[in-house]
């Protein structure tokens, strides 16, 4: 097990390296510089500014410098927010993104699994059809449609919830963003659970359990569910990627001070170091989650041997 974790982490290093390299050179290939402002800087001042950030050196040298510092955990200063380092910005803005992401996936798992199990137990009957219709809608209605429509209907016209803002994470401010983020996840999770459950309910050991005369509720909870939610574990990584994508939209529409909003703004402003920091952060997050998913899978399914 430990050896497996070690090897996976070793594989993660070249991946991260690739991410950093690609992001670094793509950012530098972009036209414009972080120091383009409304007023053109005097050439001497611009030269000084560039020198201060080490940007007067050749790009190759800058790249090596960046790698060395990043390996030591130093992601550099922000080029736009003069007094802040990239780590400061990550630290100050991760909270809304994390809160929303974790709550959304937790709520989506509970609701999605319940709906999926319900649909599987009532296969091809009304409940099943209803749940699957909702699931298709959930997949087909993107976040950038649900978010403005919910704001327009529930927040703006009915006035039940605030239209935007973070407000230190007060519950009313959280509800709409979480709903928007969770809906597509609920759809996918309920479909996965239903498919897994239907397959498991036809398996031999479930038939054995029935033959023993165990009550159906016990079979579903103890025997079937555990195997049926296995596909969900492998879905953890993609789910995280989906939430990150969703958070870009949600943080923009609800005007939340999260990382997603920062990323697009920083990329447009050519704030090289901040963009790099966020790419590294998210890539690391996805790598770790994929590893956790694989480990969990092995724990839940003894047939899987990690080698």
């Amino acid at each position, binding site marked *: 097990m430990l050896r497996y974790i070690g090897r996976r982490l070793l594989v993660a290093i*070249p*991946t991260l390296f*690739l*991410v950093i390299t*690609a*992001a670094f050179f*793509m*950012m530098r*290939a*972009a*036209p414009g510089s972080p120091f383009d402002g409304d007023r053109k800087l005097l050439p001497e001042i611009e030269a000084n500014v560039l020198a201060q950030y080490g940007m007067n050196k050749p790009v190759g040298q800058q790249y090596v410098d960046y790698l060395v510092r990043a390996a030591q955990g130093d992601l550099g200063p922000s080029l736009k927010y003069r007094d802040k380092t990239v780590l400061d910005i990550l630290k100050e803005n991760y909270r809304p993104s994390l809160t929303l992401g974790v709550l959304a996936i937790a709520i989506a798992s509970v609701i999605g699994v319940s709906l999926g199990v319900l649909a599987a137990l009532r296969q091809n009957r009304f409940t099943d059809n209803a749940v699957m219709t909702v699931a*298709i*809608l959930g*997949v*087909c*209605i*993107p976040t*950038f*449609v649900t*978010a*403005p*429509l919910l*704001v*327009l209907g529930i927040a*703006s016209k009915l006035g039940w919830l605030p239209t935007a803002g973070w407000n230190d994470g007060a519950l009313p401010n959280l509800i709409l963003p979480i709903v928007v983020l969770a809906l597509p996840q609920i759809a996918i999770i309920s479909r996965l659970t239903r*498919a897994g459950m239907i397959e498991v309910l036809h398996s031999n050991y479930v038939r054995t359990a029935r033959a023993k005369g165990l009550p159906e509720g016990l079979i579903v909870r103890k025997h079937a569910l555990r195997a049926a939610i296995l596909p969900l574990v492998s879905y953890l*990584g993609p789910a995280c*990627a989906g939430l*990150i*994508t969703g958070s*870009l*939209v949600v943080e*923009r*529409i609800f005007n939340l001070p999260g990382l997603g909003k920062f*990323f*697009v703004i920083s*990329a*447009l402003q050519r704030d090289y170091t901040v*963009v790099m920091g*966020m*790419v590294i952060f*998210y*890539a690391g997050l*996805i*790598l770790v989650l*994929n590893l956790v998913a694989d480990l969990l899978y092995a724990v839940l399914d003894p047939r899987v041997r990690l080698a």
Partner: protein
Amino acid sequence: MILASERADTLNRAVSVRGRSLWEDARRRLFRNRAAVTGMVVLGLLVLAAIVGPWLSPFAYDQVDKADVWLPPLAQGHLMGSDALGRDLLTRLLVGLRVSLAIGFVATFVSLVIGVAWGAVAGYVGGKLDEAMMRFVDVLYSLPFIFFVILLMVTFGSNIVLIFVAIGAVEWLTMSRIVRGQTLTLKNKEFVEAARASGLGRGAIIARHIVPNLLGPVVVYVTLTIPAVILAESFLSFLGLGVQPPMASLGALIAGGASDMELAPWLLIFPSLVMVATLMCFNFIGDGLRDAIDPKDR
């Protein structure tokens, strides 16, 4: 005489009952699926509207009319109203649908070509090459891709060709995995062995025998990739990184509608409806195709 002609008739009928091919079976199952057929009909209408609609409209999609701003639906010949610049929403919606569909089809085609070639070669050649190629796919899989697409758009500016390439380059990964898996099972089949025994080269076997037999799962995945691509493009446009005004796409229209929704909700509602309808059609067709081609899941 009568008997003989009757016998001939029976014989004819027997001859006319031909064996049904797998594809014919699949087609029958597909056409019996009500959701899939509805999806095909609606999608057909949407595609038709996107192609001919803008020509039939009395307005141009970028025609600004300072006198007719913020018109609600049905006012002064604007069936779906007009936006802040007095442009006709229906015309813009049709053009936007055209752009989104075009991006969907072209980018999916890009991903199809890369994915099938990559997966078929990896699966058929096998060994070290397979391992290297699939490891590469694994690495790409674990990247936060949306960030790279965003960076790409920021770096090279938003032009439509780049959107095709960027999205197509992201979407080929799953395709290559599916194709590789299928290839692995196909390459040990008798007909491939026969082809090999008759001296056919590797490239020819992949092109003539492997790829055509991959068609089933590939077709299913393609119909599910198109909506994913449309979604990705709209997502970029929503963030302001996709197609640029005055050009329209479904995502760009929804983004515009979302910022003006308090004043003119129709600008948000109509594009959203078309977007959802389009995505649903593709998903219904995809699900129907999967059930038809691979009936073991039913």
